[in-house]
Structures are given as C-alpha cells and as structure tokens.
C-alpha cells in the first residue's frame, strides 16, 4: 500500500495506472474463492460416484419426508424471524418507549444461545416429564393423553427453537440498515403525508430490503444446516439424512448427492431474491443526515412495544439462561477449575481470530465484485459463500480430506527425495480449524459486508478515484470508515457463530484442544443437562462481550449521530431527542 498521491496527474495517465490492480483483484478473488470453495467441491466430487441403489432406497423410503420437513422448517422459520426481527428492529430504531435503550442490545442476546442448547433446555422444562406439565397434572389430576399440550419435540417445536435463536440475524442487520438510512428520505416521506407506519412500510422497509434479506438468508441457511435440534426432536431433515446415509448406510456418494439437493435449495433461495430485486439499487443518494427524531409511544402502544420486545428476549434468552444459571450453581465441580478457564480462553481466541479472518476475506471478495462486476467473479463469490448452509460436519470432512491428502503427498515427496518425513503439517492443527471456520462462516460476513457496501453509492468510488486513489486506498480510506458499523456486525456474527460451532471443531481440532461448545455438547448429548450448563452459560457470557461492544458502536455508526455537530443540515429535529447512551460523544 502506498500513500495517496496528493499531486495532480493527467487523467489519462491515471487511467493507465488503474488497470493492473484490477487484474490483481480478479486474480486474488479467484484464488480466495477457489480455496474457500475447495471443501464444497471435494464433497461435490463424490456426486459423480454412482450411488445407484442406495439412492433408489432413499427415494422409495425417506426422501419425501426429508424434503417436506426441510421445506416446512424453512418456511416456518423464515416467517417467524421476519415477523419478530423486522418490527422490533424498527421499534428500537425509530420509536421511544420504556426500556428501549435496554432492548436495543438485549434483543441480540439470543444470538449467543446455541440452538441445540435451547432445545435441550426447553425440552427439560416443557416435555411430558418436565415441571410445567407435571404441575398441570398435579393441579388437574389428569394423566397422559387426557389433556392437550403442545408437543415440544416436533417440527413445530424445532421451528420455535430455531426462530428464537435466529431472529437476531434479521434484527441485527435490519436495525443496522434502519440506522444507516438517510433520515432525509424518511423526512420526505413524512412531508408527503406518510404516517409512522406508512413511512415504515413504503420507504424504510423497501430501502432496508437487502439487509433484511441478508439476515433472512443467514437464518434460513443456518436452519438448513442445523443438526443438533432436529436430531434431538426426531425431525428427519436433509441434515439428519446426510448423516444417516453417510455413516449408517456407509455411502458417501449418496450422502453427497443429498447435500447437493440441499445446496440446490440455497441456490433457489438466492436466485429468487436476486431476481425479485431486479435492477433496483439501494444506496442513498443524499449525504445529508440528521439525528432521527423518535416517535414517542404512549399508552397501549408503548405497552405493546414493550411486550413485543420483551417476549423474544425473555423466551430466547432470559428463561433458558436462568435455567442454565440454576443448573450451573448446582454443579460447581464442572467449572470451578483451571481447566474450565483454559476452555474459555481457547474458545475466545479461536472465535476472535476466525472472525477477523472471515471478515477480511469477505471484504476482499465483496470489494472485488464491486470493482468488476464480471459474471465469473459473481459466481465465484456465490459458491464461496455457500458453506453456511452446509452442515458443519460436511465442511469439516471437506477440509479434512484435501488437507490430509496434501500432507501425505508432501510427506511422500520429502521422504523419497530428501529422506526425511514432514508428517502432518496442516491436518489436526488450529490452522485447519480456522480454515474450516472461514469456509463455513464466510457467508455470514459476506452477506453483511455486501449489504453494507451496496449502500455506498458508486459515485463515491468515482470521486475517490478521480482524486487519485487506487482501488485499495478507496477501500481503506473511504469505504471502511463508512462501513464501520457493518464490519462490526459481521465480526460479531462470525465470532458468536464460532463460539457455538461444534462439528468442525470436534473433528478437526488438535489433541487436548477443547472449546466450550465441545464441552457443552458432549455433556448435553449424554443427556447430562445440568453438567453441561456451565459451558453453555459461558458461551453465552463470552458472546455478550462483543454484543455489548457492537451495540455501542452501531448506535454511533449512524452517520447523522456522528456528524451532528458538524452538520449543516438546516432543519432542526422536530421532536425532542432521546439518544441512546454512548451516542453523545464529541469528536
């Protein structure tokens, strides 16, 4: 990287100088995308092995159930996360009601809850043997089958569990979008006679669409990849099917073909969204921001807003966390020791490193795509971002196979040529683990970064370039500062995802390397919920650190908030301001 040139040069000369970086970018994106797509390609490689007869068997017996259940889950979770995530994001972004300042960060808390943990916890509370139904029976004197109670271990139960932990994706991304929206468009909508709801429905919502869709896509991809919850609830989906086919039936080819069908779902989702968006672009044409005047909610509206925000936090976080805390207190021997501290340490650093890597790669890919919108780059970026919908274990195996092959090939070569053995260089190292995380969670950072980058109008790039900046300088000096909130969101999402990640960690980790998720799952999987609770609770607590940091920064990242002291906006805010804590800093 060089210093930006401050001297003026002739435009033609500059135009010549820009060309090489373009090729560099496209080479970089090719290499990065190819490397990241490697595990998925390895799995796809199995597709061409004829599975024939096993596939027949699947089609005749269980395939229809896999498809139906996976689709039902997708639809249910999709509707659920939208109905919760978008309205609460709007409420805490533009309305004022009791508790709003707390809710704006508290609504993110369920993000730190692994889906399988919340599933175990709720099952413990709500199933037939649990305290809730036990109380009902005690009060009414009825027995099994004599009263109606929703069956928690069902596809409906799985939907609710997944909605409760996945709605924060939609909330987080749409809130960021609402906050980054130029207030001018909202003000214009108001001067044109739109009420609060009209402004939301006809202006803010369509403008936030890329972000909302990005959040929705993440939630749906995670739904497809979920294994722990559906397996525990006995719901047969593609994910459980892949496991059974691979190991139970011992047929990797048929399993890979199932995984391919799974990925087709994802492709269809993405293509549908792109197609419906057509040529619309969502960046803001005005650089004028002012602090958003909040609607003061009163009376029943305030109560409704309060309850509407409280419920997801209560069900998705407070209740299960309380239960975990109770169990943790009952099992001090599980966590009051140095080994547990080591676990927390490992997990935290692993997640932090993975977050930085995934976001860095996402920036490179997204920016390269912006620089040159070639079809090839688009496809490469798309494929690299598909890992999120693939069950973690499939990715892990996709990493394991080429890494081990590389290690062994290198070892053979070194042995035969120099007579020395290099052993396994990459397999079973933290590097392999971080690589798997990057593959698996790239979609998370990519979706977020792309949504953020998409909101910056291309004229900014043109202006920066015409002032003599190279593409890289444009990125670091123009885009990155604007996208600070977006980048932090991406970092947080990956960080928390890695905290919770289990299957890849389990199979790729080095000797004696444990994480909190591994510990929590091993014990919970053995139905020792109380013993597993301290690790689960620690995941939640470690996840809280970046949630709080992020919340502070997103509040600040709203351009209007930052620039208000310098703002030349002639129009003073119409209503008294209620600014979130941490936004009143002076530059």
């Amino acid at each position, binding site marked *: 990287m060089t210093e930006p040139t401050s001297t003026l040069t002739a435009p033609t000369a500059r135009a010549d100088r820009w060309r090489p970086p373009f090729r560099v970018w496209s080479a970089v994106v090719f290499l990065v995308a190819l490397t990241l797509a490697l595990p998925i390609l390895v799995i796809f490689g199995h597709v061409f092995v004829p599975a024939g007869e096993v596939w027949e068997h699947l089609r005749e017996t269980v395939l229809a159930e896999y498809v139906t259940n996976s689709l039902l889950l997708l639809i249910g979770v999709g509707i659920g996360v939208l109905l919760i995530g978008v309205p609460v994001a709007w409420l805490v972004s533009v309305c004022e009601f009791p508790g709003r300042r707390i809710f704006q960060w508290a609504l993110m808390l369920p993000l730190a809850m692994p889906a399988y943990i919340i599933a175990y916890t709720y099952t413990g509370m709500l199933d037939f043997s649990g305290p809730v139904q036990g109380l009902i029976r005690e009060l009414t004197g009825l027995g099994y089958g004599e009263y109606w109670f929703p069956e928690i271990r069902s596809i409906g139960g799985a939907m609710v569990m997944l909605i409760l932990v996945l709605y924060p994706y939609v909330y987080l991304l749409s809130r960021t979008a609402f906050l980054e929206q130029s207030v001018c468009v909202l003000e214009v909508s108001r001067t044109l006679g739109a009420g609060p709801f009209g402004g939301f429905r006809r202006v803010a919502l369509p403008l936030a669409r890329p972000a909302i869709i990005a959040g929705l896509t993440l939630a749906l991809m995670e739904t497809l990849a979920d294994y722990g919850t559906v397996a525990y609830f006995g719901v047969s989906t593609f994910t459980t099917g892949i496991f059974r086919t691979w190991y139970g039936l011992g047929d990797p080819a048929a399993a890979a073909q199932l995984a391919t069908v799974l990925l087709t779902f994802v492709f269809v989702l993405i293509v549908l969204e792109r197609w419906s968006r057509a040529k619309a672009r969502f960046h803001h044409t005005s650089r004028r921001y002012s602090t958003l005047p909040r609607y003061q909610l009163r009376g029943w509206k305030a109560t409704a807003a309060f309850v509407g925000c409280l419920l997801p936090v209560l069900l998705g976080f407070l209740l299960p966390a309380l239960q975990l805390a109770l169990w943790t207190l009952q099992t001090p021997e599980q966590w009051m020791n140095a080994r547990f501290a080591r676990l927390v340490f490992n997990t935290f650093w692993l997640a932090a490193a993975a977050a930085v890597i995934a976001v860095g790669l996402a920036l490179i890919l997204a920016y390269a795509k912006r620089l040159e919108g070639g079809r090839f780059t688009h496809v490469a970026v798309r494929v690299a971002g598909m890992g999120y919908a693939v069950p973690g274990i499939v990715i892990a195996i996709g990493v394991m196979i080429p890494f081990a092959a590389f290690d062994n090939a290198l070892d053979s070569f070194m042995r035969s040529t120099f007579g020395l053995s290099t052993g396994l260089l990459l397999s079973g190292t933290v590097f392999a683990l971080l690589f798997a995380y990057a593959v698996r969670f790239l979609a998370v950072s990519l979706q977020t970064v792309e949504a953020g980058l998409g909101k910056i109008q291309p004229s900014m790039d043109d202006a920066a370039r015409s002032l003599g900046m190279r593409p890289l300088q444009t990125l670091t000096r123009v885009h990155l500062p604007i996208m600070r909130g977006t980048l932090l969101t991406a970092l947080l999402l990956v960080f928390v995802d890695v905290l919770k990640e289990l299957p890849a960690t389990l199979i790729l*980790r080095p000797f004696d390397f444990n994480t909190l998720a*591994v510990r929590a799952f091993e014990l919970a999987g053995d139905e020792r919920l109380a013993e597993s609770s301290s690790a689960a609770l620690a995941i939640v607590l470690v996840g809280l650190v970046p949630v709080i940091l992020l919340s502070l920064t997103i509040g600040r990242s709203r351009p209007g908030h930052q620039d208000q002291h310098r703002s030349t906006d002639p129009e003073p805010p119409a209503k008294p301001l209620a600014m979130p804590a941490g936004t009143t800093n002076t530059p």
Partner: protein
Amino acid sequence: MRFRPFAWLVGTAAAIAVSMPLVGCSPADQDEVNLYSARQENLIRPLLEDFTDQTGIRVNLVTGAADNLLQRLRHEGRNSPADLFITADAARLHQAREADVLQSVDSDVLRANIPERYRDPEGLWFGLTTRARPILYHTDRVDPDALSTYEALTETPWQGRVCIRSSSNVYNQSLIAAMIATEGAEAAEEWANGIVANMARPPQGGDRDQIRAVADGVCDVAIANTYYLGLMLNSEGRDREVAEQIGVFWPNQDDRGTHVNISGAGVAAHARNRDNAIRLLEFLTSPDAQEWYAEVNQEYPIRDDVPASTTLRGFGEFQTDDIELYRLGDHNAEALRIMDRARWR
C-alpha cells in the same frame, strides 16, 4: 480519548490470530500416547489421569463421534498421530478393522483379562466394558410375567405402549443387526415393522427420555441401555424418582439371550507409541479401571472376575446374546435400510 471498540476489537483479534498457532500445542514429549476417543472426555479423563500418575506416560486426547474419528484416521493414513482408537460400540470397531486402520496386538495380559468373545480373534480390537439393552417396564402397570422376548413386543397387547429412540442411534442399529445375524433379515424386518406399529409416540430424545416416558405414563415399556438406568438410579432428584419406578426385564432368556454391546479399543495401524498404547489398553482392563467403570459409569466390567456395581447386580443375572460382535458391523447398513422401510424415524 474516545473509546474505540472497533479498533480495539480488530487490534486484539489480529494479535491473537498471530499467536494462535501456539495455543493447543503440547510440549514435545517422548513418553506419550495419542488417543482418538469416541468416549466422551469426562467418561475417560479420570482414568487417563490415573494412568499418567502410575506410568508417567502423558495421554493426549481428541474426542468425537466414532464415525468422524474413523474417517480422520483413514485420511491421515500412515502419518496419523493416533496410537489408540476407542469407540463406544462394536460395529465401529469392526468398521475400523475393515478400513485397515488398526493393527494386531499380541498381549498375554489382554488375553487373560478379556473373555474371548469380547475381543477380535486376531487382536485388532479389544472390549473394555459391556452394556446390555433389555426391556424396561413400569413396575405398577406391567406384570413382568407378560414379558418374554423382543419379538413379543410386536404383538397386539403392546399396541401404543412401546417407547424406543430414533433409528439414527447406533444401539438400535446394532440391535437389529444382531437380529439379522441370528434370525435373518426377514424376521428383523418383521420385528421393525411390528415395533413401529406398537410405538406409543414417534421416536424422540435419548435413552433417558424413553425411561422418563415410561415413568410418566406415555408408554409402559421401553428398550434402553442399562447404564442409563443405572446412572439415573445413582443421581439425585427427579431422575432418581423416575428410575425407581422402572423394572428391568431380560428378554429372550430361553433362546438367543439379551442383546449386549461393548465399548472397546484398538491400536492404530501406524501408531508411533505402540508400546504405550498397549500399556494403556492393559491398564484399562486392570481390576481398578474396571471397577471405576462399573461404579462411576454403571457399565458391566469386561472381566469376569470384577463384580458389577451394586446397582447393576440389582438388575439380576441374565443370559447374553453370544453372537460374534463383528457381525453387528457387517449388518449395520442393512439394519438401517430395514428401519427406513419401516418408517422408523
């Protein structure tokens, strides 16, 4: 100065990313043994620590699902660091043998400690504990005289009264694989269909959940592993109350016997610390280790001369199904197909 969380976060994370490779590295230690274990860490770590105390040999551990560890072993090939592979069922041991990732071990100690039927004839794997999968029933609602065999549970009187977990679980796969081996695929398929028809509810949860369901009246009988009931009886609180309402019935005592499975281990084909791995195996079959398994984990000792726990002895003596355990692995895929066709979730 303004607090800048962004810079702070990126800065620390980057520093960490650089230092990351240092984490998790163990000091180069000549006297060590590397373990791939499908048994969970908390179920094996205390024993490994005893081993280290007694021998000075450091034990490095990776735990995970047996299938995945086996896959890792296979792909790592001759450079695999693993010395010993531990599983919680016989089918996977057999699959490991077939995948050529184990090596033959000739040890008088192991031969003496482990009955012949619980180890591979060529010494490729050795059983460490056994567990049975009998019929569990509610003592108030079921007369044990009405119970006889696994097969009898498919008859009309048991309609809507049976609980059993998902067919994805290897213990159910092994149960059916054993039936295929002794009674033939047709009989096994008939049994699977009959059980599905008599299920009180679609399979869900683990073995403990089936036991709880029996206590709560969802069903009257369940098929589950003994150590789950044993552990529940030795726990505190509600699970104990649940388990105290449950009786153990040993099915098929007049013919092939009750289905049993083992946890076991084999020395990796390319083990660098072969001798240490064998020492660890021998240690795991020593009376002390076997007693620990029996008491803490409620599994049956593999050795005849070490008594089962008081809890397990309370379940009574029984005749085991003496099928060669490797055959469970041979019939695993077929068992799963049968259950798929029976719509056993």
